[in-house]
């Protein structure tokens, strides 16, 4: 199985763990992730305005490359998944956006949403299959009580993302079960962590994350897992954050026995300096 892979900006820097574990796990599962060449950042949030075109082009570029390679496009980060799927839907179903975006792009042949976009979790569920995954687990995480934290971007709007039941999702729970751990279902797992608001409204985000943590702990979770670097950041900032938060790929790598191999040299990259530089440039 060979896929086009769109890592996204954060997986190059702060969330390099999410990426490294994913690649190691994919390799262990016989999945080849072929990185999109010269990908550009998806923008982190989907531009909601119906007249937004330029902000969607980086996604179109990646989607078109996958189309040309006749591959499914896989994302690891919730936000990239969200933006990519929605832009793809625009290209497929919104004639105005499709026409205008194609006018900008000057592609060999117009892109009309042909590429299939999947989050890596969907690949595990729909392509690999959780039953198959279970068979490949070498170090089951037996006894671990893990709460899935979905947040918003994986689930909503459910009609477009077609990821899982937006109000009572189960894909990560099934994943947790497949790697031998015990999923803890708690009602706040699809509530927002605050998202980008945490840049300027730190308190607001903190309150939200505390609610989530409390709920998860109340139902017996010992660890939380997420697919989103921003969720991870916000949850970790929660003052009463008593639960560790890890990427789902880390759990996967551990279960597949490839974790040690990638406890990596990249650990400890300090992103702040680079970000500051980038900001100065912009």
């Amino acid at each position, binding site marked *: 199985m060979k896929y086009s892979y769109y890592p996204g900006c954060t997986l190059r820097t702060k969330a390099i763990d999410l990426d490294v574990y994913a690649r190691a796990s994919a390799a262990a599962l016989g999945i080849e992730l072929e990185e999109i060449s010269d990908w550009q950042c998806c923008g*982190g*949030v989907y531009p909601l305005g119906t007249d937004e075109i330029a902000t969607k082009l980086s996604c179109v570029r990646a989607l078109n490359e996958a189309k040309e390679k006749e591959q499914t496009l896989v994302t690891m980060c919730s936000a990239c998944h969200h933006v990519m799927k929605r832009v793809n839907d625009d290209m497929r179903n919104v004639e105005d956006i499709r026409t205008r975006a194609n006018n900008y792009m000057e592609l060999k042949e117009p892109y009309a949403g042909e590429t299939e976009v999947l989050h890596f979790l969907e690949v595990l569920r729909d392509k690999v299959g959780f039953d198959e995954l279970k068979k490949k687990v070498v170090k089951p995480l037996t006894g671990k009580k893990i709460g899935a934290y979905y947040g918003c971007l994986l689930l909503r709007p459910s009609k477009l993302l077609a990821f899982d039941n937006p109000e009572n999702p189960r894909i990560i729970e099934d994943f947790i079960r497949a790697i031998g751990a015990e999923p803890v279902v708690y009602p706040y797992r699809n509530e927002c962590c*605050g998202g980008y608001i945490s840049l300027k409204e730190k308190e607001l985000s903190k309150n939200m994350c505390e609610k989530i943590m409390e709920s998860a702990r109340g139902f017996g979770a010992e660890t939380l897992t997420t697919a989103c670097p921003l969720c991870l950041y916000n949850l970790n900032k929660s003052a009463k954050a008593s639960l560790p938060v890890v990427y789902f790929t880390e759990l996967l790598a551990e279960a597949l026995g490839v974790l040690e191999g990638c406890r990596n040299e990249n650990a400890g990259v300090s992103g702040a300096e680079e970000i500051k530089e980038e900001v100065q440039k912009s």
Partner: protein
Amino acid sequence: MSSEKKQAELIKEISGVNPLKCMKCGKCSASCPSYNEMDIKPHQFVSYVINEDIESLVNSKSLWKCLSCFACVERCPRDVKPGKLIDAARQIVVRQKGQNYLLADEIPELLDPELPQQLLVSAFRRYRR
């Protein structure tokens, strides 16, 4: 057309939302995680657009409290999608020159060592032109 009317039309156009479909059930406000931070509540956005009171809307701090978490969009029984209206109002503000809610100068002090790239680009896109 008055400028207020024009702006109301612009919001409807950018958002693709027909506010007249709203039946004022309040499910959006019941779902909003930022509700308490907002001066104009999600269900009220619709009325402001219908009444063409865009001035109040663009000056509302609610614009900057919305998380785009799409809970209101997901649950709205009438397909009104208040979150999209809010974003359209936000767009009207940030598309006017110099109206960015996030200034480059203030960024360094908002940063911390763990802060992910994604947060910054997301905030940039929602808050700036």
